[in-house]
């Protein structure tokens, strides 16, 4: 499968998934479509020549994070969602997001160099070994900071979500 076919296929998957996330009323359906969208983005990473990132995308995003979403939806045990209605505020927000999309198109009008095919750089291939070396040499300090952020987020999440004890105010 050449790059063009792969790109068209996977971007169609990603976009249809994303559209259904926004449009589905039932949050469980939205999560499942989001998994589909993430798999499409993983395929895009594959066509970009980064198989490592595609694997991590499938494992961390489509696996771990989406399971977290599903667990929370199951815990909440929501009633069947009703139609949220179309209000003036919602129309305005849709208009604002359309304006954002148009703003994101500006580089394609102003920068003609983007039209050229992207030739892959030849210096370092994206292998797990090269990514690891870059991560632990050039980016060692950011890596440690991110690991600390993850730890703090985990402790904070446990503290926030934990049921308050009887003797303390909610």
């Amino acid at each position, binding site marked *: 499968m050449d790059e063009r076919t792969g*790109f068209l296929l996977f971007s169609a998957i990603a976009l249809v998934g*994303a559209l259904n996330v926004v449009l589905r009323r039932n949050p469980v359906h939205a999560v499942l479509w989001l998994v589909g969208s993430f798999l499409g983005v993983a395929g895009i990473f594959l066509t970009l*020549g980064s198989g490592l990132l595609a694997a991590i995308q499938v494992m961390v995003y489509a696996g771990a994070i989406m399971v977290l979403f599903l667990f929370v939806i199951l815990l909440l045990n929501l009633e069947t969602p009703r139609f949220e209605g179309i209000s003036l505020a919602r129309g305005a*927000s849709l208009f604002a997001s359309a304006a954002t999309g148009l703003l994101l198109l500006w580089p394609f009008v102003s920068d003609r160099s*983007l039209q050229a095919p*992207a030739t*892959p750089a030849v210096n370092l291939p994206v292998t797990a070994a090269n*990514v690891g070396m870059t991560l632990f040499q050039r980016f060692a300090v950011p890596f440690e900071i991110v690991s600390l952020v993850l730890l703090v987020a985990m402790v904070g999440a446990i503290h926030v*979500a934990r049921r308050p004890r009887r003797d303390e105010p909610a």
Partner: protein
Amino acid sequence: MVPQSWYLLLSAALFTLGVAGFAARRNSLVMFMSVELMLNAANVAFVACARAHEPVRGTVYALFVIAIAASEVAVGLALVLALFRLKRTVNADEIRELRA
């Protein structure tokens, strides 16, 4: 070869869908999912732009974005759980205690 602009257009489309979902939906869980969509769009742009210069660095940046997204989801879902315990709703319009 696929032009770089195609990847950036895909990224822009995904980001716009995320913005639309975040702005228009009132279910706070779906709003979080829209944020995930936006982060994914940023990842696509990172990797696509890095390909012509330093592909390894683009992958490293995307890994950082994924780690930040994971911690954001953990804290955000904990907040949604705590709010639901307090208010019995996840509708963002019905949570207005901080409104002046």
